[in-house]
């Protein structure tokens, strides 16, 4: 189903409100919506709510052959899905621009930041490594999917336990969860994304935009940061892009 268009009237109302430092849900400019993290019964399962946005992450693992270029490293795989359950505008099984961008951002935030030690996921060099797969499902869309997804992914990864592996000689044994306590991943740091949206050619800035706000924004800046105080701008030069008005689009570059 196609997204219901936003009427000019509503757009103007929203922009006017932002100009007057008012937001639809009564928040201030830098107020974040309440975040709730719920864990499932399984290892590596969690649901993150940011306001009405709801994201579910489930981590799973399997033994696969490593990449040729990195024979001693495990593989981290992220898969974010936008189903029509989240919003009627989303179509399942379709590679929308938004989906690609979100997946790419997630990878940059969590894989490229090396927050998970992939070297310890090696079982037999060049033959068997653990592939850690993070599946993220957006259950409800009320803006700021990126922040919710990043929180859900890193929490689920920290919560996850993989089966213990014993090596004796050239024999490898994978122990069932009951046989031996499973092993947590080694998480070096926890990067979390914070999104800022820009309005009126960058004159106004709001943190944690909701769905309505996202539809009238000019640009988006996502900053991933961690508690080790290493900050890196996820979108280098985002500011420059923001100055150039592009209607209602994410600025990834």
């Amino acid at each position, binding site marked *: 189903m196609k997204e219901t268009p936003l009427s000019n009237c509503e757009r103007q109302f929203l922009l006017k409100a932002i100009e007057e430092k008012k937001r639809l849900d009564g928040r201030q400019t830098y107020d974040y919506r309440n975040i709730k993290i719920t864990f499932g019964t399984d290892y590596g399962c969690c649901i993150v709510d940011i306001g009405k946005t709801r994201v579910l992450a489930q981590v799973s693992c399997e033994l696969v*052959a490593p*990449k*040729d270029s990195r*024979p*001693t490293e495990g593989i981290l795989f992220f898969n974010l899905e936008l189903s029509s359950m989240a919003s009627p505008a989303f179509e399942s099984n379709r590679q929308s621009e938004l989906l690609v961008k979100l997946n790419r951002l997630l990878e940059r935030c969590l894989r490229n930041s*090396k927050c998970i*030690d992939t*070297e*310890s996921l*090696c079982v*037999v*060099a*060049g033959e068997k490594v653990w592939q850690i797969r993070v599946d993220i499902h957006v259950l409800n869309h009320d803006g700021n999917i990126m922040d919710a997804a990043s929180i859900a992914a890193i929490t689920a990864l920290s919560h996850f336990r993989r089966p*213990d592996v014993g*090596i*004796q*000689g*050239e024999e490898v044994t994978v122990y069932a*969860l*009951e*046989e*031996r*306590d499973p092993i947590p991943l*080694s998480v*070096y740091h926890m990067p979390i994304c914070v999104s800022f949206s820009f309005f009126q050619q960058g004159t106004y800035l709001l943190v944690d935009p909701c769905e309505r706000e996202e539809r009238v924004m000019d640009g988006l800046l996502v900053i991933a940061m961690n508690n080790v105080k290493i900050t890196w701008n996820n979108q280098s030069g985002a500011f420059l892009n923001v100055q150039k008005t592009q209607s209602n689009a994410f600025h990834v570059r």
Partner: protein
Amino acid sequence: MLKSKTFLKKTRSGRVLKVVREHYLRDDIWCGSELCVECRQESPPPPVLQRDACRESSLCASRHYIIPDTNVVLHQIDILEDPLINNVIILQTVLQEVRHRSAPIYKRIKDVIHNASKHFYTFTNEHHRETFIEREQGESANDRNDRAIRTAARWYSEHLKKAPDGEELQVILLTDDKGNREKAEGCGVIAYKCEEYIKSLIGSPELMDRLALCTDDANEITSSKILFPEHLPLSRIQAGIKSGTFLQGVFRASRDNYLEATVFVQGDGDDGTEILIQGLQNLNRAVHQDLVAVELLPRNLWVTPSSVVLVDEGPKGDEDGDGDEEEQKMLKCDASESMLKPTGKIVGIIKRNWRPFCGMLSRSEIKEATRHLFTPADRRIPRIRIETRQASALMGQRIMVAIDGWPKSSRYPNGHFVRSLGSAGDKETETEVLLLEHDVPHQPFSQAVLSFLPKMPWAIAEEDMRNRVDLRKLCVCSVDPPGCTDIDDALHCRDLGNGNLEVGVHIADVSHFIRPGNTLDQEAASRGTTVYLCEKRIDMVPELLSSNLCSLRCNVDRLAFSCIWEMNHNAEIISTRFTKSVINSKASLTYAEAQLRIDDTNMNDDVTRSLRGLNALAKILKKRRIDKGALTLSSPEVRFHMDSETHDPIDLQAKELKETNSLVEEFMLLANISVAQKIYDEFSECALLRKHPAPPPSNYDILSKAAKAKGLVIRTDSAKALADSLDMAQVEGFSYFNTLLRILGTRCMMQAVYFCSGMDSDFHHYGLASPIYTHFTSPIRRYADIIVHRLLAVAIGADCTYSDLMDKHKQAALCNNLNYRHKMAQYAQRASVAFHTQLFFKSRGIQNEDGYILFVRKNAIIVLIPKFGLEGTVFFENKEKRGPRLLFDEEVPSLTVEGHTFNMFDRVKVTISLDASNIQHQKIRMALLEPVYRREHVPKRTTGGCAEVTREVKCINSS
């Protein structure tokens, strides 16, 4: 951009990858010479190559620059490092090849380049428009590189000719490759052999000595040099073993010498032979504990084990075999024919026994490299090369690494990072390391195991009382060390009124809770024993059982297995009875408390009277046992006083033994012997017993020699004779001598082992002088006792049997595991003590202590410091500098160092300090203070020749 190379590559997962490589060339790369005016830039760095590049050579009279090729750099780095050699052009091609082939040499050449006074210039010929060449069709990478070197050399000579007064400046290519030299001369480049050139240098004959012997022109670049012989395929090994040409055995690397190992070949029954393996080639990539096939060498190649201590260290690359060869020479020593041991070489590996190893990363000297060497904590394991991108994060941490393989072209095995254990030196990390290194299973109990625990709150149920006697009214008490929570034994003694006494030993009924075959039982069987470390206990069974339901605490009803004797006052047994029971202990005492009660004449309660009765009987039992020839040996045991807050050791004391210790011990021995007899009578084929074999007479050699030196005779023909002669061995004014002898005596002993009665005929327990023995009294912390409990329960009809219990082969396999776990637990315990000793000395600083020489080795003495029970090795020589003159006499044994003779039991004085320079192998460092020996080549008498005394106290303790 000159070149863009695009190629397609198929990845392992089947996808096709397009790789684009772009190579950029420039024409503003400076040649680096002072002479040149042509390629000067606006603000050039000061020129590197001098105008007067003068070295007098008979080959070329004029000034000249040198361009060495890759092999010259690799082999003649010593020469290049000499201050005499300067004005050298190192081509980028050469540098890249060197880096690829040998990290240490790369590091050295880089250092030379950075040294401004050497005038070494790196010319980036690969990015220079005129010197870059493309690889031609059918040309190998090596040939292309050689050509690149020649091209660059030619460019230089032509380039410099253009400069004013560049005419007389020559560029010389140094190469040992004949073909290369000819081709170079063909295109007008002056090329010499390295040797030729060095010889021609006037006024520096000493350089000739440094010239590395290069075989000849055939020496070409091969990055995959074969270092080891090929392993035979399994089929040929099996055929060889069948025909007797090969022998199969377990490979045991030497702890002290990385070039030496033995292979233990299991013979018939218990005995086996050891085959000595010496040298890297013969060791042929076998790793400690592998199952290997060996081929014996002809008798004329047999050697003796060297008593040299050799540690594989220093930055060695793949190809660097020189150091090894030198060390291999050290092994050679002439020895009498009789000392020769069967020597062999490894021909193949039957089964690898690799496990993940703990250790630390030794970072590669190249900063951005991803391949690093890992040094395992266990010195019997070779260093392992791993690939990691987080080397800087892993420095200073204890990490775990698994081996993946050992190709025959590699000096070290290849492995991968498993996980990080924490920073080195931390108490938790080190404890984890020593548990892992001793293969002590210490992960928390799994859900499957915990599911077999009884539900809480637990109470004795009706059906538990079947086949059980109610002994709750008896005045039972337990005596244990302070702080003990797993109380598995309790005692009672009462007057029967008929002039006899009733003595009972009550043991926790663990087999009631652990039913055969379930996961809990399997886990306990695999753990085999509880491991006690200085500040931690690794339980064999979950805590609910060990510290609560099975622990015979006072004033609660507990299930027990009781062994009750009727005895007269002479401690002669009139009758023995075994029964499952319920008891209610009246008091949980410590040894000290029990002793106070016995000694305090004012106390006359039931518990105290019971203890006194037991004490009187125990004394008689002990005397009788010693008369029969039980040994009292000694080992220096220490106890730490821990700070209650930080858990750091604050004091160290030798363990003290009280009368009550031996009280408990005597009754436990008695119970064990009684039970052993009972289960053997009942099940002659599958009783689990414990034996202590008499050591072979040769084990006593060291003891006899030591005693003979002091003019004493130790008789070793029987345990009784040994015990008596040890009692007699006294030296006037040397009270510690007897203890030293007993310590030494302990080292002569064999290990006591569990065995299945159906699989063996010799049951004798040598140390206790008992014809039969088993373990019955500590089922909470030993699995053997659980099996014995089950056997006894079946024997008295209190429990039913199961098939595995009656299968002697299964039981023999179980015994093997238990023996292994016990041994490892013991080592882990010692390592824990050693680590805490280190912590103690860290806080104490440097100390001077008296010690005694315990052993004398070829290049070292081993010193024992009785006050701390600390043992350390004193080396008198090391690899770097020539040590003092040593004379080793194996017969006495004695070691003469510069005129001073060290004998066993000599008193020495040493200073002890902690050497933390190597975090992984922190050492207790000792230096000999007295006696002082003098070195001849030290002209002035300094503070006295201090021998470096080191002792590695980390994970693994020898013996």
